[in-house]
Each structure stands twice: as structure tokens, then as C-alpha cells.
């Protein structure tokens, strides 16, 4: 039949997107461009994992394709209609996956400890960072903004994170409303930011530059705008920046924070600086969330209307 030709031709159409893999600009592949040891370790384990699996998957794919082309009925190849069991092959089909999974299990165990958010051994066991005094940052997410508190420096920044390079940064994270997910692809993997709980994360930036950070867990309407820039700067620049923020002189105590935590969409990408931050603010936020004293209900008209006029009323 003549018209049978068309679907054969269509098949090659299907392969076009594969070309993309070769042709793309690698600069945008954040996962392949780590700028710190934690993200680099993540990438390392990804490569190891893929390479080990390829050892079995590539031959399997080749074998399957070969079987499909070799044993089509038209080829009149050897047909063995009784062949359904072979002890040797059974050992092979169970043995290979067991060995591969065994090897991967070892790397998985090792990797879990290497990038454990509470105590990533790629940082804590690394002699390079043993003498560096770590920077502490407390992260609080609201609906739908980020507050980065530097407790030792008594400053705070909303929607922007500034860190010095080659210095371990230890985060304590919590949320005032719903669960968010702290994620800077080029520096560190994800960890949940949960209300009433304190999670931890650690990272080191090895290159100065600006990296994208965002929340990776759905938290409601303003979630897509929960971006923050992560600026990794030199030690000196960092100190200068701290001084600059300190001079702004806007005090951040709990009542002011509670006002900040009202549902707000960061449509305009605004950054706020605070100095003179109340000590123990982070713990007070957790305590109040746990006691049910810090909670803003999402207004009904916001969730029910199919129009973003009201949504914009809640933006900054």
C-alpha cells in the first residue's frame, strides 16, 4: 500500500528533540555548573550513578535493538519456539542488576553523608575550611518572601542573600506559614523550610558571582515570584556590605517581622535591608508559629477569583 510510507517518514520527526541535547549552551545548565563543593559533590554522584548504570543499560539497549532487527519474521532467522528457560541466563538477569544495585548502594550511602544538609562532610571534613569561621544565616520564609537574618551581624535582608566566598555558610531555616524549599541550584541542593520546625543547610561558594535561588515547593499563589539573588562576594566586599546595611538603621523586631509576614507577592522583586535585628528573632518566630500566634490566613477572594487584580493588591 502506498500510503503506508507516511508513518515511516514520521518516525524521524520524532528524533528531532534529541538533537537539542548536543546543541545547547551549557552555561544555562545550572546543574552542570556547580560553584561550590556541595553542588559539585551532587554532580559527582550524578555522573558516577549514570556511568555505572550505563555499563548495563547501553549493552541492553544495543542487544534489544539488535534482537528486534535480527529476529523480525521477514529475516527468517533461527526461530526457537520452545525456548523459554535457561538457568545460565536466569543467573545473568538476576545477577547483573544485583551487582549494579550493590555498587550504587555504596555510592548512595557515601553521597548521603557527603551532602547531608545538617553536616555535609564535603565541607566539615575538608581541611581547607577547618580554620575558617563559618557565617551563620537564619532563613525565614513567609507567604511569599524570604527573610535572611545574619544573627551575628545583627542585620537582615529580605529577598536577597549575600555571602562571602570560601567561607562555609550555615543556615537555619523555618517558615511562618506553609512549607517552602530552599534551593540554589549552583551552590546547594534542596531542603524543606517547614513552619514550626528548624531545618539546616550548609554551603560554600568557591566563585564570586550571582546565583539564582528560589523556593522549589509549591506554597500558594505568590510561589513563582519567590526568587532571590544569591551574591557570592569576596570577604572584603562582604564586610563592606555588612557595614553599609548597618548604616541603614531600620530596626527589625518581632512586631515588625509579623507585619512583614503578611501575605505579599514579591512581584516587583523588592529587596529590604534591616539593621539592629532583635536577638533571638528566629527562635521567637518558631515559638509563635508553634503556638498558633503567627498565622495569616490567605484571603478567600484571593484564592477564588479567576482574576489577578486582587492578586496584585497583595503585591509589593
Amino acid at each position, binding site marked *: 500500500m502506498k500510503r503506508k510510507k507516511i508513518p515511516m517518514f514520521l518516525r524521524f520527526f520524532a528524533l528531532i528533540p534529541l538533537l537539542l541535547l548536543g546543541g545547547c549552551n551549557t552555561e544555562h545548565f545550572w546543574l552542570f555548573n556547580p560553584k561550590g563543593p556541595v553542588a559539585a559533590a551532587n554532580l559527582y554522584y550524578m555522573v558516577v550513578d549514570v556511568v555505572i548504570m550505563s555499563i548495563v543499560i547501553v549493552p541492553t539497549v544495543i542487544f534489544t535493538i539488535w534482537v528486534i532487527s535480527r529476529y523480525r519474521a521477514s529475516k527468517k532467522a533461527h526461530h526457537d519456539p520452545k525456548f523459554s528457560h535457561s538457568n545460565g541466563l536466569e543467573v545473568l538477569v538476576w545477577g547483573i542488576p544485583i551487582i549494579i544495585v550493590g555498587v*550504587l548502594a555504596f555510592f548512595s550511602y557515601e553521597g548521603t553523608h557527603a551532602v547531608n544538609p545538617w553536616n555535609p562532610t564535603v565541607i566539615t571534613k575538608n581541611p581547607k575550611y577547618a580554620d575558617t569561621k563559618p557565617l551563620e544565616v537564619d532563613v525565614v520564609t513567609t507567604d511569599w518572601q524570604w527573610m535572611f537574618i545574619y544573627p551575628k551581624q545583627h542585620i537582615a535582608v529580605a529577598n536577597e542573600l549575600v555571602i562571602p566566598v570560601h567561607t562555609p555558610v550555615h543556615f537555619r531555616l523555618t517558615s511562618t506559614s506553609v512549607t517552602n524549599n530552599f534551593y540554589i541550584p549552583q551552590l546547594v541542593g534542596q531542603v524543606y523550610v517547614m513552619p514550626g520546625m528548624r531545618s539546616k543547610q550548609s554551603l560554600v561558594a568557591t566563585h564570586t558571582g550571582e546565583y539564582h535561588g528560589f523556593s522549589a515547593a509549591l506554597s500558594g499563589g505568590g510561589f513563582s515570584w519567590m526568587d532571590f539573588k544569591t551574591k557570592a562576594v569576596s570577604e572584603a566586599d562582604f564586610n563592606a556590605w555588612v557595614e553599609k546595611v548597618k548604616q541603614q538603621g531600620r530596626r527589625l523586631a518581632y512586631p515588625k517581622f509579623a507585619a512583614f509576614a503578611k501575605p505579599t507577592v514579591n512581584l516587583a522583586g523588592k529587596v529590604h535591608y534591616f539593621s539592629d535585628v532583635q536577638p533571638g528573632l528566629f527562635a521567637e518566630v518558631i515559638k509563635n508559629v508553634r503556638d498558633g500566634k503567627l498565622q495569616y*490566613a490567605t484571603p478567600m477572594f484571593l484564592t477564588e477569583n479567576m482574576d489577578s487584580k486582587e492578586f496584585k493588591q497583595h503585591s509589593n
Partner: protein
Amino acid sequence: MLVDLQGPWNPIFGRLGLLLEVHYNNPIIFFAFMMVVIGGTAALSWVTFTGRWGWLWREWLTTVDHKKLGIMYILVGLVMMLRGFVDALMMRTQQAMAVGPDSPGVLGAAHGYLPPYHFDQVFTAHGMIMILLAATPILVGFMNLIMPIQIGARDMAYPYLNALGLWLTVAAASLVMIALFVGDFSHAGWVGLTPLTELPYSPGVGVDYYLWSIQIGSIGTTIGAVNLIATIIKMRAPGMTWGRLPIFTWTTLASNIIALTSFPVLGVALALLTLDRYIGTHFFTADLGGNLMMYTNLFWIWGHPEVYFVVIPAFGFLSEIIPTFSEKPLFGYVTMVLASMAIAGVSWTVWLHHFFTMGASPGVNSYFSIATMLVGIPTGVKVFNWAFTMWRGKLRFPTPMLWAIGSLFLLITGGMTGMMLAVPAINYLVHNSVFVIAHFHNMFLLIVYAAFGATVYWWPKVFGFKLDEYWGKVFFWLFTAGTLFVFVPMYTLGFMGMTRRLDYIPHTSWEPLLLLEVIGTGFYLLSILAFVIQLGVSIYNREKNRVVASDAWGTSRSVEWMTHTPPPFYNFAVTPVIHARDEWAWRREHGLTNLMPEKFLDIHMPKNTAVPLIISFFTLVCGFALVWRIWWLAAATFAAIIIAMIIRSFDKDTDYIIPAAEVERMEKEIVARAEGRIPAGEPAPVGGGAGGAYASKRTPTQRRDND
């Protein structure tokens, strides 16, 4: 009221007053509403003008025939899949439109055409519908349709419960469709992330729709699971030992063991969340001793086994299709059975990998990581076994085989990315990113491919004619183009760091790939068109493609090919005796393909009943009343459900017997029809995927209970 509700409430109408306050000035909803009205009116008018109400009622709405229930399950699944696909189209176009701060916004949205909460509802509905109301019913439908014939049974163990399971699924689907127009749907993701689903953050009725529709649907699935397991254990034909059970029946068993034990856990998770929302308990709140990760935990105790609940039957399809078109028995039957059971067992020990990033200790994460990878062993075994089944075979490539091979390659890629996700060190980077989305769509597409393969494979058995091969191939290749165009860019975006559920895309570098994905959805749209044409052409040409042989493909192997095509409503005139693992292949080899028994016996069949339909209708109303907090209506319909069950329990007139002479007459007629001695145009009293015509036309000659 027990909790602080935003918005109005009154004792008679509950929260329905909300509808007056909230303005739906969105043309999309209006358009969808018009489509449903037009479609519904067209369907109802067709039924009315062709005078088919009686037929519809007798043959379909009150039937307890497992084949018809199976067909209806699949039909419900396909309709809901279309709805889920429209949701997917909206998501892909919104994301492609809303890139960067300068992107335009229309229809009241700031970017794209869907405001955030509308977009959130779209992806929540998409996820929930595709898994619970599309994949699950389609697979349960195939189990219903094929499995009882495969084990040589007349019907399921509990035909009445079978109908109840279907109609409860329909009630759940109806509730979701009602949510489209009356109120709104959940906007918290198909997993129902707490505390986002708690009343303060989801003050409307959307989450309540989500909770009750899943709750109703999962009761239906649990009932189905009880039925399918009991059928496999108790209803096998003589000689059908466990070692001879067809592989699809084995996978049905494995996946229903999962359904039976995991759906209750989902029920509990949703019930506790319901309590939080309705009476103000503190299970998943952040305050007053609640633990919000506990919901996630309970949800995934169900959720992960559920993934295998839908994938294992797909493996069963492959294990039926590949041997048939390789003209060889399945390689490593015992291994395949063990592998299915192993997947079912291990699936219960791995659920934390859905929230590695919760911050559990490295010990906990390592344990769940390694447990997850163990699933890779039986899955790898299955891939090897299928390859060795084709090895030294005599391969033909009609559409079922194409779908099966597509499915096999999807399993290989999906399995590989799954093993990547199982490693916490990698998972931290790609969790909640579109890499995960690409991975699990990859896996679900494997199921879709297998299910389309199964549709073409078993279509002639059920309807008596083959589907058109040309349009089937067009459908396959267009669908495959869609798969590649959507999911290769999606994997790529995952490596670029894009996360899921974004209604606004802040990074312009992602735009070209998002546009490619839209092209992919275009291919999917065309493929659906091709599918519709395929069905249309096949039905139009059904006489040309008529299959009269019991075995439509000539090389099939299991028992379902051993009865007439299409099977009469009693499946087998006389229960077959099984002698070998692939009984039909065995009989073919020994020249025993005559389907006509020497003598006939009385057949005992269940009678049609409307009770499942009535109970499900009350359940739907009860669910609606609970969503809108109309307590009196909820209480009244709940009481009505209990009363309907009690009344049914007093009904003793539930079965009838077909006398042997009548069976003989029907069998001879079927053979005459197959040999062309009766013109095909004549209306068939039996057949057509089965009877019920007989069941409803005649009065029972004998009751089951003579006490």
C-alpha cells in the same frame, strides 16, 4: 460551626452562598461549561431519539457483567484522560507564554492567561485525574475485562460489588467534573501538600472537592481489589494451578494486593486532613502539636505503592503482547512472577524517597535510598526477560507490538532516571524539579503505551473486529513524536534547574525549550485526532475487519483466546479444563482448537441490579453536600446509602439459571454466525462484548437459594 470559615454559611444551603459572591468572569470556564453542556445534550438526545434508554438501562447501567463493567471502566478512564490532557495543554501553553517580567497577560492574568490560583487548580486537577481517575480506571478496566476469562471463570467472585466499584469511580469522576463549574478545585498539588491544604491557606471548597472525590474513588478501587483478588484465588478453572496462571493475571494479583493494603492508608491521610478542615483538629497544622510532614508520610505510604499498582499491570500487558508477536513463550515465567511479587513487596518499604529533602537523618535517607534501588533489580530482570523472549523469535510488528516496544524503551529510560532519583545526593538537586516531572511522566507514559497496546491487542476479542492498522501506526508515531518533543526538553530543563508548578517563568533562558514542549503537545493533540479517526474508520469498516476466529492474532497463547469472539455473556459454555501454562498455545499445538463441547450444562448467572447505581448516586450527592457543608443533606444521603444496603440484603432474587438446552441453542447460533450462516447484520442476542440482553429479557427459571 466548629471552625472559622471565611465566607457565608447557612444551615440549609451550607456554603453555596459563596457562588453568589465569587465572580467567574473567565471565558475558559464558560467555554468548558458550554462544551460539557453541548456534549451532554448531544449524548442524551442521541439516546432519546434512537430510543435507547431501555437499552442503556438494561445493558449498561444495571449490568453486573464483568466485561461490560470493564468496558465502562476504560471509557470513564479515557474521558477523564482527555480532561487531564486539556489541563496539560493549558499548563504547557501558560508556561510558554508567561516567561519573563515583560511577558503579556490576558484574561485578567498578569502573565500568560491563567492567574496563579487558576493555574494551580489546573495542575492539581491534571495530576489527580490522570493518576486516580484515568490510569487507575483504565487498568482496573482491563483487569475486569480480561482476567476472569483468562482464568476460565464465568464472572467475578462478586459481580454486584464489581458494579458498585465502577459506579463509585464514576461518582468520584462526576464530583471532579462538578468542581469545574460549581466552586473550584484544590490548588495545592495532587499530593495535597499540608499545611497549604489546611483551612487558613485554602479557605474555599476546592480542597474539599479534592478530599471527597479521592475518598469516594479510593473506596471504589478497594472494593475492586477485594473482588479481583478473591476471583483469582477462588474462581480458577479446573487445572488452572498457580504455575499455569497467565502472567497478566499474576500482575493483576500483585497490583491488587498493593491496592487492597495501600488505599486504606490514603483514606486515613485524607480523613485526618478532613477532620482538620471540618472540625479543627491539629493533625497537620504547624501549631498546637500538629505535624505537617505526617500527611506527606501517610500520603506516600499509599502513593508509592500506588505507582506500582499502575505500573505492574502494564508489565502484564507487555508480557502478553510480546510473546504473542514473537511466536514464543515468555522467557522466564517463574522469574517474571517472582519479579512482579518482589516489586509489590519492595514498594512498601521505599516511600520516604518522595521527601528525602525533608531533612531526615542520613541513616534514614540511606535506608530508603537503598530500598528504592532494590526495586531496580526485579524491574531490570523484566527488561532482560522481554528481550530474551524476542530473542530467537519470529517477530511481527502490528500496532500492539509497536506500543509494547515503545513501552520497553520508556521503561529503560524511566528506570535509569528513577535510579538517579533514588540517590539522595542527586535527589537534593532534582527533587521538585521538572526532571522529576519528566521521570514520572516517562513512567506513566510507559503505562499509557502498554495500555494502548493492550487496547489494540484485546479489541478484536472484545468487539469482534480489528482496529485499523494504518491509522493505528499514524497514532503511534504522532504520539511518540509528542512524547519526545515534550519530555526530552523537560529532562533538559531539569538539568537547567527549572522547578515544577511555576505559573510564571522568571528565567528567559528556559523559553525555547518550553516552546518545544508546546509543539510536543501539538503532536499529542494530532495523535488524539488520529486515535479518534482510527476508531471511526475501524467501526465504519468493521465488517471488513471482522474477526470470527476465537484467536484474533493466530499466535496468542492464553485462555481468553479460547472462547468465542466476542465472548458470550457467560464466557464459556462449559468451563474449560486447563492442561498447560499457555493453554491455548498447547491446544493449538495438539490440534484441539474445537470450541464446541460435547454436551452442555445449566449455567448459573447473577441478575442485573440497579442498587450499585443508586448507592453511588447517593454517594455523589453526599460528597457534594459534604463539600459545601450542607449537613442535613449529607446525613440524609448517608442514611439512604445504609438503608439501600440493608434493603438489598433482603433481596433473595439475585441470580438465575440458563438451562443447558438454551446454552446449546446460543452456542450453535454463535457458531452459525461465525461461519456466515446468519448474516452479520442481524442483531445479536448474545455477544458484542456480552449479553445481559438475555439476562434482562427472561424471567428467572430457578433461584440460587432453595432453603
